[in-house]
């Protein structure tokens, strides 16, 4: 198939602009001269096949996106997103976002190889947006996932992954963004949670973004800022609160005499911040205004907040696993990638690319999960 080098050049240019990079930045990292990069982006010359692979690797894209007309990339959505919210994303955060999309694409591919089947949750469709729809949808999802009465979650992340959502955490350094949802043309619904926030806040953000993925999926993306008061954001908050603090759980606590210690214990049990719990208790008339104000000063130290995805991890490797998590490498993702490797679906080179490292670093990452590479004579 003949290549339209003008369109190809525009795609390469768009990838660079989305990452807010200069030609000189790219040239230094990929070993192609500035002049040649410029000519390629202008559509004056055709890149070689290896250069296409280099661009694909560097910009974290499927190389087929560059050489075909198929819509294989979320680049266009990202471009629109930056046009709208560009000032809120630093250069580092743009990299984080691009790598997040790459991880989502890889995860979908890996799950296809492993013939993983999602359970299909059909969220209700509402013609108008009301706050209470959040709680209704949360209850429907809890029932769908098989949760009874006041039963709580052993791992919130794995529950949401069951319904086919790609969920990754990344540390967004200079961002006001707490999370975002993107509808990827291939990978489907993808959620990013800002790992920079405290663990319980991340749980809330995750649930909030799940609501966008379920009820606002007519939009290509949604970005949630701290203290956003749009109707859809309010509905998503209502979903998150109801999902994390089920009404049946609150009912059980109606007769309780609240004190500081109990508030902190219950918040820890639910893995939510004190503020989130107090809002739920007050809106369900479990506490009055004076109690609400009295308890509002309570804080749970960051170190005491247990992470769903780090539960049971040995203290000797917990810091290393945290470092991986903030790059997006959850245990779920790493194990699935390795499973695909072990079963011969992908090579070690691909495994390394999926884990955002070069092959020399693979062994040390896999060691953390007690996983191995296979060599043979």
């Amino acid at each position, binding site marked *: 198939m003949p290549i339209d080098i003008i369109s190809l050049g525009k795609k390469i240019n768009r990838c660079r602009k989305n990452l807010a990079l200069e030609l000189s930045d790219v040239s230094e990292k990929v070993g192609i001269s500035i002049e040649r990069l410029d000519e390629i982006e202008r559509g004056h010359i055709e890149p070689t096949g290896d250069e296409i*692979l280099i661009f694909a690797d560097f910009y974290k894209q499927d190389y087929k996106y560059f050489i075909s007309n198929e819509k294989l990339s979320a680049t266009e959505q990202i471009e629109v997103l930056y046009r709208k919210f560009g000032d809120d994303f630093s250069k580092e955060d743009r990299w984080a976002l691009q790598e997040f999309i790459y991880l989502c694409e890889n995860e979908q591919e890996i799950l296809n190889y492993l013939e993983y089947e999602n359970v299909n949750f059909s969220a209700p469709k509402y013609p108008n947006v009301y706050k209470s729809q959040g709680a209704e949808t949360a209850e429907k999802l809890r029932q769908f996932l098989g949760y009874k009465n006041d039963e709580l979650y052993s791992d919130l992340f794995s529950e949401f992954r069951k319904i086919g959502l790609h969920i990754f955490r990344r540390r967004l350094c200079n961002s006001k963004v707490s999370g975002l949802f993107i509808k990827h043309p291939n990978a489907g619904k993808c959620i990013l949670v800002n790992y920079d926030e405290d663990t319980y806040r991340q749980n809330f953000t995750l649930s909030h973004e799940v609501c966008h993925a379920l009820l606002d999926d007519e939009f290509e993306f949604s970005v949630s800022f701290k203290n956003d008061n749009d109707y859809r954001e309010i509905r998503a908050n209502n979903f998150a609160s109801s999902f994390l603090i089920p009404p049946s759980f609150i009912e059980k606590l109606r007769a309780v005499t609240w004190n500081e210690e109990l508030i902190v214990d219950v918040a820890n049990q639910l893995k939510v911040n004190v503020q989130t719990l107090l809002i739920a208790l007050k809106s369900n008339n479990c506490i009055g205004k004076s109690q609400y104000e009295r308890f509002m000063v309570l804080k749970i130290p960051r170190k005491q907040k247990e992470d769903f995805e780090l539960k049971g991890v040995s203290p000797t490797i917990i810091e290393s696993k945290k470092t991986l998590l903030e790059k997006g490498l959850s245990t779920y993702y790493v194990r699935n990638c390795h499973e695909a490797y072990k079963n011969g679906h992908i090579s070690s080179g691909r495994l390394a690319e999926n884990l955002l490292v070069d092959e*020399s670093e693979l062994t040390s990452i896999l060691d953390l999960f007690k996983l191995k590479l296979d*060599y043979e004579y």
Partner: protein
Amino acid sequence: MNIDITEFNRINVIDTCAIDNLLSSATLYRAARSSNCSFCYTKFVEYEMLYKNRKNIDEKSKELQQKLKDETCAKRLECHNLSIDDLQEIEILEQRKRLGSGELSSIAFAKKINQNFMTDDSKARKLGGLVLGIKRVQTTPHLVGWLFYKRELIDSDFSVIISEHQNYNRPLSQYFEEAYLESLRIRSMNK
């Protein structure tokens, strides 16, 4: 894996990992060249070896990078470019999400020039075999076994090769040994 070390195809397109394994041992590399083996690599592999961000690159890896540069300057190793057409081959497109880009470009180039692909990853070997046919995918341990079988390497070279290979923190000592022992077994049967 059953490899016939009595035969080895001499012209190979070699991937990143196998370049490191080959260049890790000067004794092995010298013997391969004196047996008229020829190795080339693609521009993507050069990018992977020399430009791509490697966060924890150590002194040994830097030495291997320098060896690659020196061998290329001396025209003992050649670097080649794929065309976009090569990437549009159906079999290459089908494997693109299963292989690392270095492996993929090496396979695509081996296919283009109708030669062999050398890799030390067992999964890349199998996936490469789907495109090229399994006989056209070879490994560094295979090369080691063949060189011992042909007596291009002699028994006293074995410990040197292992020591050189381990000095660069490379992972194939066990497989070099298996290949060496296989050469001894076959040679003893042929006596």
